[in-house]
């Protein structure tokens, strides 16, 4: 991928040669992304932590098989997502995604009137409820594309689906969301 900082490539090369300092930097760089990916799949903080940690350990051990120069992020996230799926299996409970409360949302919010703030918050909450109610595969594709902001290609790697499937499932998921929101609005 063009524009990716050379530094990352260099870190990967060093980590591949067994340099733990370099790998620790990669881990730090991608912890948030890996943890969130695992959280969206497992819907459990503890499982997300375990899955991302195991993912990083397995990725290090698999680095020899990593093709130098290939994009590192989707490769790593694929391993983490796999760990997360393994942990998720057999689980019945599922924490639904929730929104940060308005005070945590930072700049821009303060300028709004309490009424418009409440309205905007309700609108977001409604959208999130709709996403939460999607079936798992639809919810995952929406989460990968819009919450993690992965490309179609990266989403395909993480979910282990062909890219065409990502596109068709995404379009189906968006259609369902529109239906649900339309029903609620009406």
């Amino acid at each position, binding site marked *: 991928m063009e524009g990716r900082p050379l530094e990352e490539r260099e870190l990967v090369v060093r980590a591949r040669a067994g340099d*733990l*300092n370099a*790998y*620790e*930097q990669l*881990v*730090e760089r991608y*912890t*948030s992304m*890996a*943890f*969130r990916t695992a*959280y969206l799949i497992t819907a459990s*903080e503890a499982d*997300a*932590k375990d899955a*991302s*940690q195991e993912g*990083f*350990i397995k990725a*290090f051990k698999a680095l020899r098989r990593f093709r130098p120069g290939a994009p590192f992020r989707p490769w790593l996230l694929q391993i983490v997502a796999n760990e997360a799926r393994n942990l998720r299996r057999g689980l019945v409970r599922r924490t639904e*995604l*929730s*929104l*940060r*409360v308005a005070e*945590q*949302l930072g700049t821009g919010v303060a300028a709004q009137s309490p009424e418009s703030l409440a309205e905007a918050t309700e*609108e*977001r909450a409604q*959208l*999130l409820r709709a*996403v939460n109610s999607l079936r798992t595969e639809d919810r995952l594709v*929406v*989460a990968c*594309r*819009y*919450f*993690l*902001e992965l490309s179609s290609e990266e989403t395909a790697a993480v979910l282990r689906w062909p890219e065409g499937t990502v596109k068709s499932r995404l379009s189906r998921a*968006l259609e369902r*969301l*529109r239906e649900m*929101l339309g029903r609620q609005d009406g």
Partner: protein
Amino acid sequence: MAELQERLLRLGREIDYPETPNLGAMVRVRLEQPARRQRFDTRRLVVAAAVFIVTVGALLAIPTTRDAIAGFFGLKGVIIQRVPRLPSPTPTGGATVGERLGLGRQVTLQQAQAAVPYGISFPQALGTPDQVYLIQPADLKAVALVWRPRSGLAAAAQTGVGALVIEFPGQVQPDLFMKMLGPDATLEPVQVNSNPGYWISGKPHGFFFLDSKGNPREETFRLAENVLIWDQGSLVVRIESALDKGQTLGLAATMQ
């Protein structure tokens, strides 16, 4: 309709994710302990012991060598590891000493005694502990004893308490904690009540509790300073305080 996609993108930035854990240190610690799982292979153990005897002096004496080697020094119940750089400690909240130091459930000395299969002993020179904890999970049979700072027993910089004694039977869990020594911490083999032990001092070192699989428990990582650790019969005992080596060995001599 692009509007929905924009709304989803905005929504994604407002998801209430749990706080991202500090995994860099954990992953590194796990990747740095290659020899651990082979500890019970006797031949390896003999070789390791020989290497240990030969190298320990050199490692401790020559900073450049010891920095370069992420070695591993075995003492029953504890993994001591040299690392070139200490990870940053996990920020610990918690109002009580036990929460701050990850000590587990606070109990009375009598309750602790009823919960473990050995006689709890502590340096009699310190008097009765001010607080007693059963380290969790309780089947580790490990206890932590805390003495508040007082005259002659200054608060240790890393724990904030006067003295912290942790003891557990080495046979219940082969290893309960791990110490990571940065380049500036010194590790000195000592005899404690005729038992083998180590005195660790100098710059702070890393301290983790391990889970039953031997993996460091992330939430317990903190820094420690002056520590004496030794095998006392079937028990592993660890004293952490601001006292120097002579004073700590003096305390250890009053264990009962």
